[in-house]
C-alpha cells in the first residue's frame, strides 16, 4: 500500500488507505494542506510475530523504523503500520531495525510534482515494491549451533587424533616390524647406534637388556 499523503490525522489516513488498497495498490491520495511536508505510510510484516506480539526473537514493540539514517525514528503499531510525517519531497531511505531479522533498506521517492506518487525499492535486491510493505529478507541467527554429539567429532578433535595415532602405532607398527627382514632391522639398529641417535627403545627402561 504505497501511498503518500499530505499530513492529516493518522487514523483517517489508515482508514482511507485501507479502503484504497482494496481498489488499487498504487493509488494514493493527497490532501490540500499548505505545508511542505508529506507523510510516508507503510507496514512491516514479520512472519512468526503474531498478533500477540511475541515471536521467537522478541516483540514487535521493539522494532524501530528509521528514516534517513536516524533523522526520524518511529515504532510500529500493533498491526505493524508505521508512518513518518513532514517528510520533504526527495529520495529517502527507510531502514528497519529488528533483532533477529535482516531487512533490506528501502529507497522511497517522494515526488513533489505528482503529490501522492511514491516509489519504493529494496536497495539490496534492487526490486521495486508496489506497496510499502516491508518483510525481512531472512532471519538472523546470532549464535553458532552446537553440533550434536557424534563419534566423528571426537575422533577429529586433537585428542581423538592423538589417541587414534597411538592406537595405530600400537597395532600397526608391530605388524610392520614383523614384516621386516630381521637382518635388515639389525643392520638399521646398528646404524642408529653408531650415529648415536637416541631411539625410543633405548629410552625405555630395560631397553639395553632387550637387545
Amino acid at each position, binding site marked *: 500500500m504505497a501511498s503518500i499523503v499530505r499530513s492529516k490525522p493518522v487514523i483517517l489516513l489508515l482508514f482511507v488507505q485501507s479502503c484504497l488498497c482494496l481498489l488499487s495498490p498504487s493509488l494514493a491520495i493527497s490532501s490540500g494542506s499548505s505545508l511542505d511536508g508529506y507523510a510516508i505510510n507503510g507496514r512491516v510484516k514479520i512472519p512468526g510475530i503474531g498478533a500477540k506480539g511475541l515471536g521467537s526473537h522478541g516483540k514487535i514493540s521493539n522494532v524501530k523504523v528509521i528514516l534517513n539514517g536516524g533523522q526520524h525514528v518511529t515504532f510500529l*503499531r500493533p498491526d505493524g503500520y508505521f508512518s513518518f*510525517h513532514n517528510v520533504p519531497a526527495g*529520495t*529517502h531511505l527507510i531502514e528497519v531495525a529488528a*533483532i533477529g531479522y535482516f531487512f533490506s533498506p528501502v529507497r522511497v521517492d517522494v515526488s513533489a510534482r505528482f503529490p501522492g506518487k511514491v516509489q519504493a525499492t529494496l536497495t539490496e535486491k534492487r526490486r521495486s515494491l508496489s506497496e510499502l510493505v516491508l518483510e525481512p529478507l531472512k532471519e538472523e541467527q546470532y549464535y553458532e549451533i552446537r553440533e550434536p554429539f557424534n563419534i566423528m567429532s571426537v575422533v577429529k578433535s586433537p585428542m581423538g*587424533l592423538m589417541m587414534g595415532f597411538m592406537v595405530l602405532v600400537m597395532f600397526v607398527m608391530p605388524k610392520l616390524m614383523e614384516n621386516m627382514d630381521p637382518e635388515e632391522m639389525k643392520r638399521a639398529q646398528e646404524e642408529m647406534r653408531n650415529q648415536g641417535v637416541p631411539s625410543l627403545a633405548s629410552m625405555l627402561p630395560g631397553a639395553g637388556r632387550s637387545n
Partner: protein
Amino acid sequence: MVMAIRSLFIFVVILSITVPTLSLYEDQVGLMDWHQKYIGKVKHAVFQTQKTGRKRVVVSTEENVIASLDLRHGEIFWRHVLGPNDAIDGIAIAMTKYVITLSSGGSILRAWNLPDGQMVWESFLQGTRDSNSFLFVPTSSKVDKDNTILVFGKGSLHAVSSIHGEIVWKMDFPAESFEVQEVIQHHDIDTIQVVGFVGSSQFDVYQINAKNGELLKHDSAAFEGGFSGEVSLVSSAKLVVLDAARSTLLTISFQNGEISFQKTYISDLVEDFSGMAVILPSKLNGLFAVKTNTASAFISVSSEGKLEVVDKITHATVISNPLPVSEGQQTFALVQHGDNDIHLNVKQGHDWNSDLLKEKIKLDQQRGFVHKVFINNYVRTDRSHGFRALIVMEDHSLLLLQQGEVVWRREDGLASIIGVTTSELPVERVGVSVAKVEQNLFEWLKGHMLKVKGTLMLASAEEVAAIQGMRLKSSEKSKMTRDHNGFRKLLIVLTKSGKLFALHTGDGRIVWSLLLNSLRQTETCQNPTGINLYQWQVPHHHAMDENPSVLVVGKCRPSSDALGILSFVDTYTGKELNSFGLDHSVVQVIPLPFTDATEQRLHLLIDASGQAHLYPRSAEAVAVFQREFSNIYWYSVETNNGVIKGHGLKSNCDGEVANNYCFGTREIWSIVFPSESEKIITTVTRKSNEVVHTQAKVIADQDVMYKYISKNLLFVATVSPKASGDIGSATPEESQLVVYVVDTVTGRILHRMIHHGSQGPVHAVFSENWIVYHYFNLRAHRYEMTVIEIYDQSRADNKDVLKLVLGKHNLTSPVSSYSRPEVTTKSQSYYFTHSVKAITVTLTAKGITSKHLLIGTIGDQVLAMDKRFFDPRRSVNPTQSEKEEGILPLTDSLPIIPQSYVTHSLKVEGLRGIVTAPAKLESATLVFTYGVDLFFTRLAPSRTYDSLTEDFSYALLLITIVALVVAIFVTWVLSEKKDLRDKWR
C-alpha cells in the same frame, strides 16, 4: 617417530586455527561479555500504583528514553529509545492503561500500552510555528468517558482522543506568539481555561469549551514591567510570576473576565535580597517558592492576594509537584540537604507546619545535590498514608526512598558517557590468594569430567547449569588484581554529570565512583562540563610503586574561550589527587609521547589564543620538553571556516601570562577548502597507542610491499555544502564527497579522491597504512564503504638481494615526515547495507593479530568485519597464489554474517561509541561499547592461537596422557614377555 609427532603437531595447529571462535555458542553468553541497561537522567516521572498488580513508575529522560520501571527493585519492565531529535516534552498516563508521550517540540504524540510497552497509536500534530509545548491530561470523574488529552504545541491547541489518537478538535490562537503556561480545568461546566503570555508583556486568558474547542471568552491585559520565566499557579484563578527584572513578584488574578495585577517587591518579603530571583516550579495551592541569592523562601498567598513568607531555608532545596491524597487534600515533598544526609519532608498543601512525614536519609557522598523529587503515596495497613519518593541526584542517579531508607538506586549517569580510558589493576601481592581457588584434586577432576560431558553433549540440564556456574567461578574474571593475560582491567569512564566511574572489565561492576568537585557548579564556574579524560600516569619500569592516575579536562562554559579545569584522579583508590582551575582556556589537549621520571605523561594544552601550555608543571617536564622542542607539531581543524592548520612551537610566550610552562606557537602550513564547494565533515587520525608489527607486507608472488606508516597522517572528508544535510535533502548532481590524506607535519596532501553523487555522514577509521570510511552513495542510493591503502614506493626497490648484501638499501632509514616519500595508494569500494553510528578497529598488544573492523550499526548492534573484506587487491577472480595469500574474491557488497555480531542478540541502545583496548595476550582485544547501554566483550580476531580456549578440556588431555602411559607400559611388558619367549625358544 619424531617426524610423525611433528607432523601431528602441525596438523593439530592447523586444525585449531580453522575452528571459528569469534562467533559464540548460545551457552557462552555472559562468559566474557556483559551488558548493562540504563535510561539516563530522569526528567519526568509518573507513578502507577493504584491498581493491584505490579507497581511501576514511568519515566522519561534526557536521553530521550521512555521507560517503565519496577517500583520494587528499579528494574526496567520496558523501554524505548526515541530518535536523537525527538526530545520528550511531557509524559502522562491516560485511562490508567496508556502512557502518553509528547515529543519533538510538541508535534508527536504517542500512546504506549502500560503493561508491555507496545505503541498503541501515534499522532502527528501540525502547527505553524515553534512554541513551547504543554501536555495536559484532564482528570475525569466519569469513568467511561472518552478521555481527551489537551496538547499545546507548534502554536495550536489540540484535543486528542486517548483511545485511538484521533484529533477531536484543534484551535489556533489568534495572537501570533501565544505561549501556553497553564491549563485550568473546570469540572462543573465542561470548560477549560488556558492562560499564557503573548510576547513578554501581555497576559491572555482563553475560555474554551472542552467538548468542541469553541472559544467562549478571551481576555487580555498588558503589563509594562514585562514577565519572565516560570509561573506558579496558586489557585484556579490566580498565578504568580516574576517581572522582567526578576525582582518583583506579580500576582495575577483572572476571575470572571477581570485581570488584575498586584506587585510585591521581593525585598519587602526577604530582607537581604539582591540580584535575581527564580520561582521554583511547583503547582501548590496557595503556596509557592522563590529562590533568591541567599535562601529559598516559601510564600503563601491568601485568597485576597496577600503574600506572606512562611519559611526560609538556606540549604539547597527541591520541592515536588503536589500529590492529591484525598478529597481536596494535597501533599508535597520537600527535600533539603543537611550536613551528611538529606531530609525528606512531606507536608500538607494548605498547612506549612504539618509534617506528614519527616525522614532523614543517609546517602553516600558521591551523589551531589538532589535535582528532582517525585512523590507517591500508598496506604499502610493501619489506613494511614505512607509516602515514597523518587529522587534524581546531581550525578543523574535515580533513588527510591521509602521509610527512611534507599530501597533501590540506579546509576543512570552511565547512560551519558563522554570519555573512556582504561587502567591496569594492582599487581597481585605475594601471599594473597595464591591457589586459594584451587580445590582438591578430586573436585577439580570432577569439574572437568562435567566439562567433558558438556562437550560430548551428554550432560543434563542441571549439569549444564553447574558447568556454567563453575566456568564463571573458575574464570576469576572479577578479581581485583592484574592477570597474566591482561583481560582484567578497569574502565575509567567520565559521564556528562561530571562523575567518574571505574568499571571492572570482568563483570562490569562499579569499583569506585567519584563526583568530581571541580566539575560541579560554583560561583566562579557556572556551567562546568567535562571534555575528556586522559591517562596521566601509567607506572611501569621505574615507578612501580606509584598508583596509575588519569587526567580529567573540563571547562567552565560550553564556549571555546571558557577557562579550563584539570583534575587528577588515582585509579586504584578513586580519590582525587589534585584539581585546579586554569588561567587559560582549553581548545585542544595533546598527550605527548614523553614521560618524566615518575612516568607522568606530558600533556600540551592549546588555548583559544593559540598558546601552548605544558603540564605537569615541573622543571623536569620542561627539560624533557625542551629536548624535543623542535619536533613537536600538531594540527587544528576549523570546521566553520574550512581551514586545517599545522602548528609548531616558537619560544616561550610573552605577555602577562608569561611563565616557563607557556609557549608561543607558529603556524606552519594551512589548507583552505573553498567554502562554496567543500565543507569539512569528518577528520580522523591514527590512534596514538596503536602498535604496528611490520612495515613489510609479503604478497603472493614473493614480492614485498612496504606500508607507508606515519603517525602524522590525517584523513579529511569534505562534502559540497548543499549535501551536508541529511539523506534526501540533496540530489546526486549537486553533491560530491572529497577525501584527502594529509601529512600533518608538512601539510602535504598525499592523496585526494572524489566520490561524485555521494554525501555524508562519513564515519572513518584510520589504522596502520589504511583508512576505511562509510558514506552514502546517492546514485545507487546505498551506503558504501571505501578502503584506501597507502604504500611507500621509495622502499619498493629494496628487493635486490645484491643491494641488500652490499648494504645499498634504505631499509634502515627512519620514517620521517621531513622527507618526501613516494607513496602509492590503492583503493576499492563496496556496498554496505546499514547506516553506521561508529566505526573502530581492534587493537592488540603487538599488532601481529589480523584486524577486525567494529561497526556500530543503526540497529544498535556491533558488527565485526575482517579487514580482509576491505582489501584493495581483491579481484573477481583471484589467482591461485592470491587465494593462498588469503585474498577473497571481490563482491560488490560486503557480506553481513549474523554470527559475527559481537553484541550477538543484544542491543546497545543509543550506541555512541566503541572503544578497543589491547589485552596483554596478543590474540585478544577488549571491546567496550557505550551509549544508553553499556556492553563489553573480549574478542580474538585471529582466534586464540596463543592460548587454549576457555572450554579446553584438561580432563580429556589428562585421560589421554594416562591412557598413553598405561599403553606404553602394557606394550613394554608384553614386549618383554615376547622377548623372553623368543629367547627360550
